[in-house]
């Protein structure tokens, strides 16, 4: 059915927007899961989106929604639906939070919830990284060398992500 893909895109990205705590990298894990479940694209295609997101100005969540929406449906409407769906929960939640800001400040239940959420979000990012270490992305020993070098350079914190991606791109062009 024609409309089905749009409904699926809406529901998936609404869920991602609603449960995507921790922003940026933490959201990757939720998007990855939805893509996997619906078979919208391969993990290496998704890795390419993350790379493109790093090199373009916008947030990863919006970028992924726009990209997946387009490729999954083949239409601009799919992009619009997915992007709208990831923003909608933010809208509903932020407008509620603004009204009850002072009542919620220092609320013990919220504070307790974050006792669990903060460490769990680290796990989500870890899982996203591990799931991306697959045969699509790591095709041979050269992939592992690039990974290790990029990891070490990134860990020092002295290299901008865009610079690292460009360097890896040049390396890929030369060695493959």
């Amino acid at each position: 059915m024609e409309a089905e893909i749009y409904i699926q895109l809406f529901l998936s990205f609404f869920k991602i927007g609603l449960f995507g705590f921790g922003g940026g990298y933490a959201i990757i894990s939720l998007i990855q899961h939805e893509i996997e479940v619906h078979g919208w694209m391969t993990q290496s295609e998704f890795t390419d989106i993350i790379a493109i997101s790093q090199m373009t100005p916008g947030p990863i969540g919006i970028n992924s929604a726009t990209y997946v929406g387009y490729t999954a449906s083949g239409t601009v409407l799919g992009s619009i639906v997915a992007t709208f769906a990831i923003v909608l929960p933010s809208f509903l939640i932020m407008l509620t939070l603004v009204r009850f800001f002072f009542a919620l400040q220092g609320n013990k239940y919220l504070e307790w919830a974050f006792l669990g959420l903060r460490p769990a979000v680290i796990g989500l990012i870890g899982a996203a990284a591990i799931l991306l270490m697959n045969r699509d992305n790591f095709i041979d020993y050269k992939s592992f060398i690039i990974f290790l070098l990029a990891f070490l350079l990134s860990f020092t914190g002295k290299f901008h992500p865009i610079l690292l991606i460009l360097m890896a791109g040049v390396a890929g062009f030369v060695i493959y």
Partner: protein
Amino acid sequence: MIPLIQKEVVENKKWMDAREFIDMLAMAQSAPGVIAINTAIFIGYKMKGLKGSLVTTLGSALPSFIIILAVAMVFTNFRDNVVVEKIFRGIRPAVVALIAAPLYKMARSAGVTWKTVFIPILAVLLIWLAGVSPIWIVLAAIAGGIIYGALHARNLSKSI
């Protein structure tokens, strides 16, 4: 994106002061969803209510939308190109490294200790090996945090 928003809103336009911005940022970061969008919604609402937040949301999402849509339209045609494929073979492992490298520092700043390190490890194992949806991990973490907090509070009040 946050430093850019701060410069525009606090320094250039003077829509709110630095303290207000930091309080607002704390809220935008603890809410689910894209943090830059949450920030935009808050600022728009504060300035001009619902209409304001609609405008700021659209304004902050639109550039990404247009750029990525253009990339998606073009890139799907070039993805099988030999040169593009070579470049991305190099890029993919580096992207994984970029996600993995900040984990240690993030865990430190999230206050993960030897006592709580089982939480991220368990989350990784459940998602990775058991294919559990990250949404269940988020819900379980919220529930677990509240249960722990409630038990802890009771113990505290007993000891007092």
